[in-house]
């Protein structure tokens, strides 16, 4: 009796595992399929791509590197990549430098107003760029950054800082005051205590800020389109779409190549930090 019982439990458990693996496989394929399709498309010849009876996931004609060649030689793709990295690095730096003290003051020093102020700052993030680019273009022109990639360095923090401040406030709130005060008792000034306790403990939070500021910069489109028109100053998101869609002609393979070339290193980079994020998000949850 007991034997068949445990056997039954074993079967059930195996069944449950099977379902979990099936679901995981399904979602993994679901997420990976567009990338696979993109990568295959990058190497397709025009006639292969545009013949409607061809299977889009197979090479019906020999693969080619011509599309990548087109991307690199016929457009300023490498300049776009350089601009994007420069703007992203500057925006990430500005965002971190501004949000760490802002979030700290809002959680620790602003008393009961801190929370409402934080939410107020977050609300700013919800104002759409399609509205804001009109007044902002005046400011960009006034400071003489029209048609310069530095215009984006100036403007992007207006949305990365509100969002990331709010994000970081959550992290700071989970760090007990005691730890900071203990560091002050143990011999440091308030700033010294923050530097040695709050900052290292919130590294996962700061990394999250870096990733979000980076990602928000990468996929920003409206401001980049509005403020920069010369090829030399464009970022990938605007440069590729304005120069590889000519009238009604879409250079699909080159477009896919442009996206995949930046997406893959970033995906790998995020993966590298994944453990830290998960550690960060569960830091407060593990007690005792």
């Amino acid at each position, binding site marked *: 009796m007991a034997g068949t019982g445990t056997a039954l439990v074993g079967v059930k458990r195996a069944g449950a595992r099977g379902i979990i693996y099936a679901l995981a496989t399904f979602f993994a394929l679901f997420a990976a399929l567009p990338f696979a399709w993109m990568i295959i498309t990058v190497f397709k010849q025009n006639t292969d791509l545009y013949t409607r009876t061809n299977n889009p996931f197979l090479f019906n004609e020999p693969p080619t590197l011509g599309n990548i060649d087109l991307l690199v030689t016929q457009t300023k793709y490498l300049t776009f990549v350089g601009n994007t990295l420069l703007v992203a690095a500057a925006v990430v730096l500005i965002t971190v430098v501004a949000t760490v003290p802002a979030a700290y003051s809002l959680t620790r020093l602003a008393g009961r107003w801190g929370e409402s102020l934080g939410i107020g700052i977050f609300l700013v993030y919800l104002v759409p760029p399609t509205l804001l680019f009109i007044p902002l273009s005046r400011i960009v022109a006034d400071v003489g950054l029209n048609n310069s990639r530095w215009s984006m360095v100036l403007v992007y923090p207006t949305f990365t800082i509100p969002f990331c401040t709010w994000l970081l406030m959550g992290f700071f709130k989970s760090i007990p005051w*005691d730890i900071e005060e203990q560091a002050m008792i143990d011999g440091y000034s308030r700033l*010294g205590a923050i530097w040695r306790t709050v900052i290292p403990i919130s590294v996962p939070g700061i990394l999250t800020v870096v990733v979000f500021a980076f990602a928000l910069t990468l996929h920003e489109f409206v401001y980049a389109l509005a403020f920069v028109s010369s090829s030399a100053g464009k970022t990938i998101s605007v440069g590729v779409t304005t120069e590889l869609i000519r009238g009604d002609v879409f250079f699909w393979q080159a477009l896919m190549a442009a996206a995949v070339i930046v997406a893959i290193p970033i995906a790998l980079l995020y993966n590298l930090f994944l453990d830290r994020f998960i550690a960060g998000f569960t830091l407060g949850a593990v007690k005792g």
Partner: protein
Amino acid sequence: MAVVETRGLVKQFGEGAAAVDGIDLASADGEFLVLLGPSGCGKTTLLRMIGGLEPPTAGDVLIGGRVVTNLPPRARQIAMVFQSYALYPHMSVANNIAFPLKAAKVPKAEQEKKVAWAAGILGIEGLLDRRPRQLSGGQRQRVALARALVREPNVFLLDEPLSNLDAQRRASARDELQGFQRRVGTTTIYVTHDQVEAMGMGDRIAVINQGRIRQLGTPREIYDDPADTFVATFLGSPPMNLIPRNGHLLGFRPEHVAPRQMLEGAGGDLVPIHFLATREEYLGAERLVYGEVEGAKAVARFPSTVDVPAEPGRGYEFAVLARDLKRFDAATGLRVAGPA
């Protein structure tokens, strides 16, 4: 080693009553001084002002004869153990203990020696590579103490350091903590709301209520000679009985009540107590008999080893030795001199 002194220390948070309301207190050198009082009476606030984490509204703090009221915590040469232990979660135990030494820019080799010494005193040599989250409550407490000890501070400030331990662990921790303090001989101010901890460990106890010191004395003085009805009823479980008589409150401990004939040989005048028993609790080592004396609720406590009849619903002729009776003013609650 140093003496801690507070002069007219006041802390007012916003409107309303002061959290700490004019405290004058002076520790002796190397003393284990306990601040005892109910939750919310201002003990933590007082300790934080001594530590420099909370600026006082008025008054002064002196450490080693020097006024430190306006100095930041790091300039006071103190060590504090928080109720939560406040271990640095991102550092190993060894680095936690070395932290105050790093702050003081002690050379590396010296740091290692000191850490090993402090860990040795508290018996945590085996834990030095662990992270705080891998430790039990008792181990965390020892790490916090080692960190407090390591730079040989003038004063230890301890805020309910045993309250996170389970009851079993707490008894042995009490013993260890007191032994540890005796060994290092550092002046210690220890905050607790637990009278057993206070009585068991303190050289002296300051009983605090609503931000004021109600009485300061040795555990024996506090228990046997309470200064007012608050102290009389806060200490002892069950607390002192208070019976209104002739405009005063007559106080006696439950363990001082006994049948007349049992006290007659004790030498001393007897004061008769007519005790109407209502309920009995058998607690193994002792019995508690609840009842009424002259209309007021009262409790008597008898060791299980003596056979005192006390049936619920019946009246008994008990007595108390006159020297065990305390009189309090009915209006102010203050102790009144003289026999009942």
